[in-house]
């Protein structure tokens, strides 16, 4: 056997704490090693060519690359082997960056550990078998989950390329948070004006099946071949018949606070469309609040409907669809301001949240765009805008929510615009405006006369101590630039609440086999180089579901995710998992332990022969069956007992050798 060893410097990333030359020299003396080299950047094209050349020149039949995590470059180096005619599975990586140079400061210890890891990989790779990669065709349909701006953008990109999309949205209409906003920073475009055409296009696209008021219940399969079960909740409206005239809504006697679209600032009926431009145009009946469903009385809507579209008997529908790729763009939840009691949201009427204020300034909102106090009549003479509510605070969310400085500036502008005499105070820690046109927007607000007080607001109270404070809300904060505690009386306070992961992001993540970060946002494959992919092939993420972000960046991610999907569809086939399990027919005793342990029901029990058999198309290669089999009759290719034990033994032997002691007998 001829093995080639390649130790990467990764600039100084590895070479800084590992003596790579020493490791390379040491490896050269190991059994079967034909050539050992160290190189600045192995993943560069020159680095890869080096491997290819050596394979040809030295006739290498095994390759070990000691560099970064295989999650980073396994496919890169497998590719290099393949190009040189070597089976790609004859390559093994030793992770001496993430697991070594980056976490140990002591160069000697790092070098020794690297040797052990290289020895382990060398020992393992000798046992590798050539595996043949099988290809599976890719289903050309795509599932997009979440109809906010990110999801809409992704769906449209794919649909416009001529492929079919199922767009699943939980609410009765698509549009997401953007549909609630009034103007968008920094250009102050009217949100609805730019969003509605997109929503309309998505709703009427011949390549988009729009499933609103629906949720994905289950996902099976793998990249290229997912099977998805979707629950389409009953709207109690016959979509074929309904013309969207809105008569039912108008006549329905039940009106409830709309906590979703109106953010609690307005009301809606029991039969409703969240907003007039809703897509689709059909209303839904909210059964929790409808008198017919609750008390068996009313049916007024049915009486007034000109097309007999109300259908109280309608039931949920379950749809099973097949798709090749999935984009999850389920967005964010706004921070619940009641969690910070000292700001008095829910206690003082004139404390509002950011989303409430968006609805208030919106001409189509509950106040027809008038900025008024909670009484709906009086106009504030002074407004405090409190930044960082629920963000940049370890008790709630440590991260910066990224959009609230900008929307706080936007709010200040809106108040100046609508109430030119009102005083506006922004209480901030830092003003964060890092994108095109954003800092200029801040400068504009400085010119408009907004009063900026640098200090996180400590509390809001209604206990007046002076005549000026009477009847006001008093915001207490340190004005850190003058180093003084100040009490600022205002009529209205707006809490710029941060962006949080959806409350159910963990369940959603499980449904799609993706993972979440410590804040509950979906975890990307690589924070810099692969922000829209996930660890699960064929499942992509976009928008604020991945982390707090504004509209331009959500749109960019939606488009990026679509591009990734399109490239897979275009390729037409995907690599199948080659590392699958196989039963040894001779030794299997037919106990069926494996059958019970397989999470994918990939093992059949053949009654006639009383043996187990793995269905390779279904096997995902987890190896649970291997560990379960009492007669050691199952092999998991590429993770065989021999390979893993060789890797372990290789490491142990090297460690003892380095210690200068021989193995115990």
């Amino acid at each position: 056997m001829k093995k080639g060893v390649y130790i990467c410097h990764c600039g100084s990333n590895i070479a800084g704490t590992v003596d790579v030359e020493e490791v390379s020299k040491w490896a050269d003396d190991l059994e079967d090693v034909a050539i050992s080299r160290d190189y600045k950047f192995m993943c560069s094209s020159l680095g890869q060519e080096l491997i290819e050349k050596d394979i040809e020149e030295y006739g290498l039949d095994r390759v070990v690359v000691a560099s970064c995590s295989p999650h980073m470059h396994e496919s890169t180096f497998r590719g290099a082997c393949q190009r040189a005619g070597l089976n790609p599975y004859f390559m093994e990586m030793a992770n001496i960056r993430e697991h070594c140079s980056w976490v140990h400061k002591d160069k000697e210890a790092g070098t020794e550990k690297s040797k052990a890891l290289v020895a382990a990989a060398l020992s393992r790779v000798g046992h590798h078998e050539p595996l043949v990669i099988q290809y599976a065709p890719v289903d050309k349909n795509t599932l997009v989950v979440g109809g906010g701006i990110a999801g809409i953008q992704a769906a449209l990109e794919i649909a416009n390329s001529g492929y079919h999309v199922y767009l699943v949205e939980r609410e009765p209409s698509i549009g997401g948070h953007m549909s609630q906003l009034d103007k968008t920073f920094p250009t102050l475009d009217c949100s609805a004006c730019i969003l509605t055409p997109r929503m309309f296009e998505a709703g009427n696209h011949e390549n988009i099946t729009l499933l609103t008021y629906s949720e994905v219940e289950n996902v099976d399969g793998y990249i290229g071949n997912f099977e998805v079960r979707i629950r389409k909740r009953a709207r109690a409206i016959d979509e074929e018949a309904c013309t969207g005239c809105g008569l039912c809504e108008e006549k329905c006697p039940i009106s409830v606070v709309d906590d979703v679209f109106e953010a609690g600032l307005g009301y809606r009926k029991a039969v409703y469309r969240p907003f007039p431009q809703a897509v689709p145009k059909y209303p839904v009946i909210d059964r929790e609040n409808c008198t017919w469903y609750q008390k068996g009385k009313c049916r007024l809507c049915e009486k007034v409907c000109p097309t007999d579209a109300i259908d109280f008997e309608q039931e949920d529908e379950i749809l099973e669809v097949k798709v090749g790729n999935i984009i999850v763009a389920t967005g964010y939840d706004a921070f619940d301001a009641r969690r910070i009691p000292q700001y008095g949201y829910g206690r003082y009427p004139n404390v509002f949240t950011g989303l409430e204020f968006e609805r208030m300034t919106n001409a189509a909102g509950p106040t027809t765009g008038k900025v008024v106090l909670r009484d709906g009549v009086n106009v504030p003479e002074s407004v405090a805008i409190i930044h960082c509510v629920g963000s940049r605070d370890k008790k709630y969310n440590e991260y910066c929510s990224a959009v609230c400085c900008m929307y706080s500036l936007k709010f200040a502008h809106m108040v100046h615009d609508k109430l030119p005499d009102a005083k506006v105070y922004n209480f901030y820690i830092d003003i964060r405006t890092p994108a095109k046109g954003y800092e200029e927007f801040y400068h504009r607000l400085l010119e408009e006369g907004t009063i900026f007080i640098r200090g996180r607001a400590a509390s809001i109270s209604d206990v007046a101590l002076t005549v000026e404070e009477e009847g006001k809300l008093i915001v207490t904060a340190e004005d850190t630039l003058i180093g003084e505690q100040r009490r600022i009386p205002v009529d209205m306070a707006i809490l710029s609440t941060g962006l949080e992961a959806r409350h159910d992001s963990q369940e959603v993540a499980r449904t799609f086999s993706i993972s979440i970060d410590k804040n509950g946002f979906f975890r990307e494959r690589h924070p810099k180089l692969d922000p829209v992919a996930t660890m699960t092939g064929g499942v992509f993420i976009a928008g604020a579901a991945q982390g707090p972000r504004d509209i331009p960046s959500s749109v960019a991610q939606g488009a990026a995710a679509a591009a990734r999907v399109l490239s897979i569809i275009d390729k037409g086939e995907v690599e199948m998992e080659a590392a699958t399990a196989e039963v040894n027919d001779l030794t299997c005793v037919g106990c069926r332990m494996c059958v019970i342990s397989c999470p994918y029901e990939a093992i059949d029990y053949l009654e006639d022969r009383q043996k187990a058999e793995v269905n390779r198309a279904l096997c995902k290669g987890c190896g649970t069956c291997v560990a379960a089999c009492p007669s050691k009759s199952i092999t998991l290719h590429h993770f065989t007992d021999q390979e893993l034990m060789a890797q372990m033994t290789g490491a142990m032997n090297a460690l003892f050798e380095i210690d200068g002691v021989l193995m115990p007998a």
Partner: protein
Amino acid sequence: MPENSYEPKIIGYLCNWCSYAGADGAGLARIEYPPNVKIIRVPCSGRVSPEMVLRTFMQGADGVMVLGCHIGDCHYGNGNHRTAKRFPVYTELMDYMGIPKERLWVQWVSASEGPIFAEVVAEFTERLRTMPPMRGKLEVG
């Protein structure tokens, strides 16, 4: 080698999706931990059989870690349920065979728990340092 400079040798079997990625995360965040652990990637913690653990001790390891995804987060749905069921039984057996069960650590570390991974390694290494080296203690093989 003097007793006090004893460095425990640890083999860690880490599932590819959560714990291995968590260890990568510790690296990305440059969180230091003792170099004693050598990591072997397995597809799922459910792949790790008791025999593998035993053989690792037989090769002279002072400690073995089996780390997988948190229950409910398994990339394969419920492969780690098997791990959770299997190892408590096995650790009892280890004691019986003369390997103190404190030498085996089975724990859940997610992909976002780099700091926790580093903590676990540090704690386990510390624990092993208080125990004598394994080498020679094992009369099997």
